[in-house]
Each structure stands twice: as C-alpha cells, then as structure tokens.
C-alpha cells in the first residue's frame, strides 16, 4: 500500500522543483537517523513578534481532505489535529498522543479485537474547532468516510484503503476496524481531521470548491494552533493564533510570503526581512553562511534520491542487468558530489532505502557500486557490447550503445550532473545525447515510458513499502522492472502484521532489486531551509519543517527586527 506519513505526498513535480532548490543543514545531526531536538539556541521562550516565512509557491487547498500541493500538506500539519501526531524520532516514524504533543486529539490508543486488527482511540474532552464547536468522534468518522469517497478524490485515498470502518462509539471514543492487521495501521489512522459541521452540507464532490476554501481567511475552521488571518493570493498568507488551541503559540503572527525566484529569496534573507526561507539551493549556501544575522541551515535529511533510470523498452542494452551495472560502475559518484559542492548535504546511494531508516538501511549488505572503469569495460565486453568499428562507441548486433539522457529544464544541478555523466560514460564507449524537457512533459515521459534514459529524483516516503516503484506492472514502476521473486517477497512483506516481521522481507527485496540495478542510485539529498538567528524553538527534520510552529519564538529584544518594514506591526504586537 503506498503510504506517506505526511499531510500530503509531495508530488514528483515538487521533487523536480525541490531538486532545483536542494538544500543543506549547517548543524551536525549526530549521524543518519538521529532524532532532532528543537534548535538549541537556548533561553526561555517569550511571547510576541511576527515571524516571516518565505515559500516558493502559494497554498491551494490547505484542508486535509483536499490537500493538493506539498505546501498544502505543510499548512494542514499546522492547522489541523489528528488523533495522534506523527513525528520522526531516531530513524522511525512515531505516533504521539496528547501526553507528548498538543496536536494529538487522542490521549490513549490500544489495539483491540481478537487479531488486533482494530484500534480504539480515547479523545481528549473539551477540544473545540476555531469557531467554538466541539471536536468529537463524529468528526473523525466523517473525515474517514470522506477520505475514502471517490467524489472527494483525496490524494490520501489509498492510505485508508485497508480501513473497513470507523465507528464513533461516543463523543470521545472512536474505533478503527481494519481489513487485516498490518504494520501501518497507526499511520492510516493519524490523518488530520476535518470539521464535519462545516462541510457535511455539501456533496463530497463539492468539498473541493467549498466557500471556506475560496476565502480561507473568513471560512476555514481549524483545530490546530494557527488559522488563516489574511490571504493575499500569490503574495502572502498571514497565520494568526487559533484562540481555541492550547497551548497558546508564542508568536503573535506568522506571515508566509510567496517568492518564486531564488535570487530574490536570497536578497530578502540577506536584507533581514525574512526569518525562515525554504528552497535553498546548494550553491547559495556559502552566501548564506557569510550573511549577517546568524543564519543557520536546517535540513530535512535524506528525503530525496536522485537516480539514473533506464528504459529497457527503448534500448535493448537496458534489458541486461549487467549492462546497467556497468553504466553505474563507470560513474564516480563521490567526485560528482564533491565537484558540485554537495558533499555536506548528500549521501551516495546504494539502494531504495534512505540512510535515515534505522530498520531498513543496511550499509553492510548494500553498498554503492564501486567506481571501476576497467571493470565496467570488461562487463560490457562480456555482454557483447564492443567497439568493433573503432568509432569510440560500442555496439552489438549493429546497434550502437547510444541513447538520449533526458532531464527537466531549469534545474542547474541536474544539468551539471548530466554533463559529467555523459563524459564519464564516454570513457567506456557509451554515447549519451543530452536533452532537457519542460518539467511536466518530462514527468509525463517517465510513467509513459517514452524516455530512453532519465535523470530525476523521487521523494523518500517515510514508509517501508517500495512496491509502487518496483512491483511488476505498477504504474510508477518507470523502469519496467519485473521480478516474480521480488514481487513475492513484497507480497509477503505487505501481509505481515507487524513492522518487525515485515522489515527483513523488505530488506531482502531491496537487496535483490539492487542486484538487478534497474536504476543507478546516485545520492540521497536533503532539502534545505535557512533560519534567522532571532527565530528560536524551530524543529526541522526528515519529517518536515513546520511540525512545531506553536513553539517558535523570538526574543523580546529582537521582536522589532522586522520593524524596518513594519513599524506599526511591532506596536500592535506590544499592545
């Protein structure tokens, strides 16, 4: 089951764009998979002030049922509570109750039923939506009915496919009955809850166009620490505290400004007119470190992997695992990383599991391919790909080892990587012609398998399930990989009741896949966010950047820093 323990799956488009805006972290995280405390700038939190966030794009539908973009998912995480609150701790997703996190509706949960295929949640009493209406178990049951409804067409629909029913036993008790016991039952029942009383009057297909989403500043009813106070389309979103949420956020306001251009974002950062700047590309890191204002770089560690994909349907050489292995061995990935200044923010990749996974990443059994040009040449010779006519390009049965390597336009890093890859392949007699396509056209060419070879990236889902990418015939299996043995292993893994039993099977499947090298795994990389010295209490990790907005704070003496642009704003803050 494809899952994603976030408010919304980041789209591949977002992945492509994020690739243009790859990021770094300036602080030592204590190694892969380590949990991350909120920043350690110190001091006692103080109330007041306005934090200015800079994002690349505007919100679209920031409501759990109809989230569309990655940023919608981020905002949903800020504005809506779920039964439990997901977080990333020590290389695993954990599900926190209200005892550990105020964003959780439930204070207790327990597996119930003879085969433990149900979970009963006990919800806190006295919780209210931002319009004062109580939050009840009926909201939970209704939300899950809507998530499964085809009229709503939620991107989370697949995440709830294993839920048989959600029963509100009373106002504060709700039980999830699953079709079977499986490892991600907690994840499936942790999706943020929407207010039934606001949307139940419209048919499911009408929720997406509900008036509250057209005018979120007036209509959006939320449960989390912040609500939308004002929205200037395409320019800014102002979040203000939700008076019904406890604890009260430290900040008076959060203003999210939309600035698509990277250079302009950097200028805002250096001018001190922003506090939290998303989408920092690796090449900007030295400038940010040199900027005044005590900027630090926070990373969402290991959340994307960059790959070279081979389409066997378009070139016969790609049908041979040994040829794919030879292509990978011809690439000096560590030198690519070093030469593009990415060493601090990337890890050479050996397989589909990111180093952030404590239970799935196995550096002993899966290692990056060795850089071995002689070995690559030998492999190609053995498979019959030789340069008989002396033109510098190998051929077999009259077919040259020549193909087009495609990537999306407008991504400087990928452009650089394709150029290096082309040169390194040339040394072993492989002729790659480079082509850049408009992003949507490129993204479409992958599942439609109209490309020959492609450089792209996938977001790392915080889940063990890799079957959407590698199962025979799966729509997102863009490399046309098919192995009955691997399919069987993945089926058995999916049928396991617990992660402890499933993980060895996932690791074995991954190891088998890596032997076949359907992709050349290049590296895992970290999206970066720059955070100003005055902004405290921020937690950014592999789970995301907005997970504890109510805990962000600005020392009182520095709350006037934004006064350069908004003197009256600071006065209001003091009032």
């Amino acid at each position, binding site marked *: 089951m*494809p*899952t*994603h323990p976030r408010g919304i*799956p*980041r*789209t*591949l*488009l977002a992945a492509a764009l994020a690739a243009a805006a790859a990021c770094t972290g300036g602080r030592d995280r204590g190694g892969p998979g380590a949990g991350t405390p909120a920043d350690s700038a110190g001091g006692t939190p103080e109330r007041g002030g*306005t934090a*200015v966030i800079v994002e690349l794009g505007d919100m*679209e*539908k920031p409501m759990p049922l109809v989230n*569309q*973009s990655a940023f919608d998912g981020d905002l949903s995480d800020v504005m809506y509570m779920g039964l439990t609150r997901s977080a990333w701790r020590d290389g695993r997703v954990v599900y926190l109750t209200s005892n550990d996190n105020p964003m959780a509706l439930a204070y207790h949960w327990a597996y119930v039923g003879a085969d433990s295929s149900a979970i009963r949640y006990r919800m806190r009493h006295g919780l209210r939506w931002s319009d004062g209406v109580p939050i009840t178990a009926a909201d939970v049951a209704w939300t899950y009915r809507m998530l499964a409804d*085809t*009229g709503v*067409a*939620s*991107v989370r*629909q*697949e995440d709830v*496919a294993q839920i048989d029913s959600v029963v509100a036993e009373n106002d504060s008790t709700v039980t999830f009955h699953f079709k079977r016991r499986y490892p991600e039952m907690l994840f499936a029942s942790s999706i943020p809850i929407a207010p039934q009383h606001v949307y139940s009057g419209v048919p499911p*297909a009408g929720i*997406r*166009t509900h008036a509250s*989403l*057209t005018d979120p500043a007036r209509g959006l009813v939320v449960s989390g620490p912040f609500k939308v106070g*004002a929205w*200037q*389309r*395409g*320019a*800014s979103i102002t979040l203000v505290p939700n008076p019904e949420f406890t604890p009260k956020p430290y900040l008076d306001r959060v*203003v999210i*400004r*939309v*600035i*698509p*251009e990277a*250079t*302009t974002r950097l*200028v*805002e950062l*250096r*001018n*001190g*007119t922003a506090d939290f700047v998303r989408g920092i590309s690796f090449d900007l890191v030295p400038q940010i470190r040199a900027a005044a204002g005590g900027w630090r770089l926070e990373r969402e560690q290991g959340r994307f992997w960059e790959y070279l994909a081979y389409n066997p349907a378009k070139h016969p050489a790609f049908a041979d695992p040994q040829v794919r292995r030879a292509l990978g061995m011809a690439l000096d990935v560590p030198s690519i990383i070093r030469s593009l200044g990415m060493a601090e923010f990337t890890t050479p990749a050996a397989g589909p599991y990111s180093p952030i996974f404590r239970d799935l990443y196995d550096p002993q059994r899966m290692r990056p391919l060795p850089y071995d040009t002689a070995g690559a040449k030998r492999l190609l010779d053995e498979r019959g790909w030789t340069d008989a006519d002396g033109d510098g390009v190998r051929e077999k049965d009259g077919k040259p080892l020549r193909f087009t390597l495609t990537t999306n336009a407008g991504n400087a890093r990928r452009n650089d990587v394709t150029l290096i890859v082309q040169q390194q392949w040339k040394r072993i007699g492989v002729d790659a012609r480079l082509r850049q396509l408009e992003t*949507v*056209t490129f*993204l*479409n060419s*992958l599942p439609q398998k109209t490309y020959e070879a492609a450089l792209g990236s996938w977001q790392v889902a915080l889940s063990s399930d890799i079957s*959407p990418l590698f199962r025979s015939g799966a729509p*997102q299996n863009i490399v046309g990989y098919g192995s009955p043995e691997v399919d069987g292993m993945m089926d058995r893994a999916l049928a396991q009741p617990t992660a402890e039993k499933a993980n060895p099977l996932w690791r074995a499947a991954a190891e088998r896949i890596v032997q076949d090298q359907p992709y050349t795994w290049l590296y895992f990389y970290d999206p970066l966010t720059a955070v100003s010295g005055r902004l405290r209490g921020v937690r950014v990790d592999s789970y995301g950047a907005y997970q504890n907005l109510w805990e962000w704070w600005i020392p009182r003496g520095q709350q006037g820093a934004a006064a350069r*642009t*908004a003197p*009256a*704003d*600071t006065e*209001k803050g003091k009032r």
Partner: protein
Amino acid sequence: MVGYLIRRILGAIPLLLGILTLIFFIIHIAPGDPTSRFINPNVSPRVIEQMRHNLGLDQPLHIQYFKWLWSFVRGDFGYSFGQQQPIKDILFGWHGVLWNTLQLTLVSLILIFALGMLIGIVQAVRQYSLADNVLSFTALFFYSMPSFWFALMLILLFSLQANQHHWPVQFPASGMTSVGYEFLSWGGKVGDRFKHMILPALALGIGNAAGVARYMRGSMLEVIHQDFIRTARAKGLSERTVIFRHALRNALIPIITLLGLYLPFLFSGAVLVETIFGWPGMGRAIVDAILQRDYPMVMATSFVIAAMVVIGNLVSDVLYAVVDPRIRTE
C-alpha cells in the same frame, strides 16, 4: 466615432474566438494534464483517474471544447483546475491578479512614454550634440538589456547593496506590500505600495522607454525639418511653442501606434518581472497555469491578453483622432 468603435469591437469577436480555439487545442496537445503533478508512488493511479473524471478530462476533446465554449459565451470562465477557485475571483476584482498587473503596467506605461518622449525630444532638438550622443548610447544600452537581468541588477543594487551600505534610498526586493501593511495609515499604505512598485516598474519600463525615445527622436527630426516648422519660426513664435505645439503634435502619430502595441507587450513582459519581484499578477498566473496544465486558467488569461491587444489598438485609433483632425472627420 461611437459607431466605428462598436464595429471594431464586433469585428474583434470572431478574431478572439479564433485565437482562443487555437490555444485550446494547442494546450491540450502539450503532453500532460492537470493531474500530472500528482504522479507519485504515494498517489494511486485510481485516484488520478477519479480526479480526471471529476475535472471532465476523460471526455472527448471536442466535447470539452464545446463545454468550455458554451460557458465562455455566457461569460463564465469556470473554475481553475489548479487552484479549484472560480477564475473570475482569481483574475478580476480589487484583489485579482489582473488589477495587480494593471497597476504595474500602467505605471510602466506612464514611465515609458513620459521618459521616452522627453529624451526623444531633447535628442531631436539637440541633434548631433554631446547630449544627443550620450542619450543615444544610454538608450541603446538599456534597450539591449533583457528585462529579467535588469530586474535582478535593480534588486541587487537598490535593495541588497542599499540595505547593506545603509543608503538613504532603499527599495523592497519583492512583493506588493510590506509585512504589517494592514497596520499602516492610509498615507503609509499608499507610500508602501509606491515603494514596492518602483523597481518592477523600472525593470518593465526602462528598456521600452529607450525604444520610445528612439522612435520619438526619428519622428521629431522628420517633422522639425518640414516647411511648416520653418514658417512657424519665421512668424516669430518662441522655440518652445514651435516644438511643443506644432512639431510634437505631428510627431506623436507613430508614437501612438506604439502605445497600442505596448499594452499587451507589457503584459507578456510582466511574466518574468513578476516572477522575479514576487508580484502576484497575471504574468505569474499565466506561467503557473501553463506549468500546471490548468486549461481553464490558460484560456481565461489568454482571453485577457487577446482582449488587451484589441483594446490597445482601439485606444491607438481613438488617440489618432485626437491628435489628427483629418482622421476625426473621416
């Protein structure tokens, strides 16, 4: 004149429909559709099919076309597939992207013509002088400069450097208003908006002003060498009267043609400038719509630009009549 305008507007309707029909089919031929951005291992293909069904994208293209046409002729632009909001709310109204762009382009237009005409007149009157040569060089320098590069230079100089070195004059790098705008006084709000508009308006306008200056110089030179100007001077009129009352009015006709052309041109030029300055206008809306394959939004924004071409030409024709009485009588 009114009858003429009505005839022109009616004549533009089939032209607009033709343009929009062409755009409809071209944008649908482009690979991908509005659901392409959900291509992701975490989103089931079944959900994507449902989305396509809900948006009507699973219907034959000609059905989609006639549905769009029927809505359009009734004045309904429909819903944006990307933003899932009524397009009229996104485009029009006080907070719509069209008004945001119009503010920018109108200020740019004033800048273009005020500055361009002034420079052109000075150059023509002082032909081959040092001032003429310096202004020609400067005008060509700015005319040759791509607007996106000029925009970045303006930001780096008048925002970043000005801020770092505490210059007395500093401008914001992006946005239409400052953080805390809503707490400013009425006068403060006007000043804040003006401050935000200066750099993008300059980026959009300077290159075009240089172009207008070249046209103006040529047109003025042609006029001031004509006999009626010599006659005016022989009558003893002051040089100011000769230039501004007699020569300028006659030299304006080719410049007015430029006005009609620049209005839609500025809209397209705003695409890059708005992206760089984070200005929430039509230009960015168009780019986002195309990238997301947001068909109804592409159609609506294309209509607005096509309508701008028609309006620009109409404005030119009306202004011809204002400056040239012969056209009025015809």
